[in-house]
């Protein structure tokens, strides 16, 4: 049971529902065999994107290419795409066996072959003992596996997963995450999955496209997105706890900013345009308490949130706050209102244009 993934690319795809713009010049491509994540909060067009790829939605503009073939106006059948819906969309009136067999029957596969493949799929997904049951009698995880099986059984080259884990409870989620990865490795097919959960996107996606208002704002590997967010939107969506944002002004000396906390160095960053409003993004992990001898920034403790091995401490200066992650022992004895001088690593600072939110590198 080996399948090979196909490449996929979307170019300038747009879709309107009435006057509502669902997709707006969406462009991205996926390499064969890639495990690709579409990430963004709800109603940014992730589902519409998947449905466009599947052919359920005809785009109003742009092209969809699968394995080098333009399928924008091609019928659904023949694209080699299958999809697992967020609701699983199992056929409620059919047994698990018939759910598996349905796509094969529609493709007029011989019944002996159908039987063989259904049993094989059930085996793979550990559903052999459930074949005669109706979907409504199955647990959430089993339903999920039936949906997966039904999508895989006709050997698609691209598998679309629409928020595959949101309908499962926390423990099942972890199991299924591993299961999905395993299946992906086993079949080697191209998988595109949509998720509003950054952890899911980061942990599963080989590459991630971050979507906003029907367009991709940045794509890259998890590391790339974490290390170099292209704008404030991505910066705030990726990473936990969230990145600190503080107002800043370039001092015009090409190496430092004025901030409410004092002067912060810009590190090795090239700063072309002098003087201007900026927003500095600093991840909580990149702030530490000043040791003796450091050039510290003045701040007072504002809020203490112990989380076990680490403690999140918010410090405040001139009306702005910064959250920082401290090892538990460093936070012992801290009280609100205490002075807490901090140090920010200039190399780890992200700088954004104050108006557009675009990153300045």
């Amino acid at each position: 049971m080996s399948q090979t993934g196909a490449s996929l690319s979307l170019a300038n795809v747009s879709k309107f529902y009435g006057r509502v713009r669902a997709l707006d010049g969406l462009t991205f491509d996926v390499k064969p065999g890639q495990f690709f994540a579409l990430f963004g909060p709800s109603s940014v067009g992730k589902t519409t994107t998947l449905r466009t790829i599947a052919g359920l939605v005809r785009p109003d503009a742009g092209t969809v290419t699968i394995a080098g073939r333009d399928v924008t106006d091609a019928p659904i059948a023949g694209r080699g795409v299958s999809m697992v819906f967020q609701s699983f969309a199992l056929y409620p009136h059919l047994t698990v066996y018939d759910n598996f067999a349905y796509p094969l029957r529609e493709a007029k596969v011989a019944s002996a072959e159908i039987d063989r493949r259904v049993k094989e799929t059930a085996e793979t997904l550990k559903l052999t003992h459930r074949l005669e049951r109706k979907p409504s009698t199955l647990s959430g995880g089993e339903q999920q596996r039936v949906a997966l099986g039904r999508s895989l059984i006709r050997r698609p080259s691209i598998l679309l997963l629409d928020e595959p884990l949101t309908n499962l409870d926390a423990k099942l989620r972890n199991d299924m995450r591993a299961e999905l990865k395993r299946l992906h490795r086993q079949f080697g097919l191209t998988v595109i999955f949509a998720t509003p959960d950054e952890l899911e996107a980061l942990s599963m996606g080989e590459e991630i496209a971050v979507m906003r208002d029907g367009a991709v704002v940045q794509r890259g590997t998890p590391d790339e997105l974490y290390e170099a967010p292209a704008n404030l939107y991505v910066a705030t969506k990726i990473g936990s706890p969230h990145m600190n944002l503080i107002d800043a002004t370039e001092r015009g000396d090409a190496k430092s900013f004025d901030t409410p906390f004092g002067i912060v160095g810009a590190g090795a960053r090239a700063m072309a345009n002098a003087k201007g409003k900026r927003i500095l993004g600093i991840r909580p992990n990149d702030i530490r308490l000043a040791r003796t001898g450091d050039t510290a920034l003045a701040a007072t403790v504002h809020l203490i949130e112990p989380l076990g091995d680490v403690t999140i401490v918010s410090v405040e200066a001139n009306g702005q706050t910064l959250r920082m992650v401290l090892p538990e022992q460093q936070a012992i004895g801290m009280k609100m209102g205490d002075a807490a001088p901090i140090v920010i690593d200039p190399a780890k600072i992200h700088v954004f244009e104050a108006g557009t939110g675009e990153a300045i590198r």
Partner: protein
Amino acid sequence: MTSVTTTGAKSPPRILQPRLDNWPAAFILAIIISILAIALLPPKASFWVSLAACALAAASAVYNAWGRYKGGLLVAPAIALLFVMNIFPLLWSLGLSFFSYRANRMKPPAFIGLDNYEKILTDPTVWDRLQTTAIMAILTVAVQMVVGFLLALLFSKQFPLRRYLLILVLTPMMLSYVAIGAFFRYYYEPTFGLLSQFVRMFTGEPFILLATTQGAMAGIVFADAWMWSPFVMLLVLAGLVSVPKYLYEAAAIDRLSGWRQFWNITFPYIRGLLMLALLFRTIEAFKLFDVVFLLTEGGPGTSTETIAIYVYRQAIQFNKTSDSTAISYILLFTVIVLTNLYLYLANRRAREA
């Protein structure tokens, strides 16, 4: 789905454009043609002319839908049948209501404008029949609601043989009106009737229920309510079973009294359904015909004659065709108001659910 873009150009107004898909214009045209045809042509010819005009209007509506909606294809047969069997005849009779016409005469219809409506709206008889209908509807619906509600409470819990006992209670709904009418007349009959015999065991006198207006009304209300309470029961049952069990458990923990439990927990779940049952049965009670006709013929005198019987007499027995179509339109208006109310509440219930 296609994208809908609004174009700014709006002159001349859409309704004046002579295009085949301009269905509002086609409808207005069809009505004008029909009225002219009824006025000017003999009945037989006017029928075909108005049918053709209306078919044109229908074609226009379908054509309008065709290019843009797949659903048009699916909906068309139903709309066509309803159009031919319901809407067209109703429109035709709307036209007729402005004429003086009797179906059993050779005379062609003569145009008399709003005379029929004026006659009916100023006719105390019509108002009296409407009043009778209203009283009867209110009474029978009230009884049905109470009885149906109590029956639903009875069957709300699971118990052995429930499935079979329910069928017993549901049976009255399935009887034919002819049998109900005839047999209730027999049950109420003073000499042979079960009711009279039963009462006589205590009083020694035959019991003559249908002799008084109140008695006749009670007899009708009882028979009709008996027949349709199971309907209310089904609705209320639906509400009762939708109450989540945990609410009762919580109430038990809070030691709520039975009455408060009902009022605070059960009632909100069945309120919408009770409303639906009320309206649906009111609309049905408004049509009350068969049972009354077979039980009392509208007597004593005309004291239990409903508007439906009145129309029946006018239209079928007296052949006052156009007069009765005018009453029909007044009824139609009433029904539309009631239906609107029904749908409004039904939708609200759907939103709450």
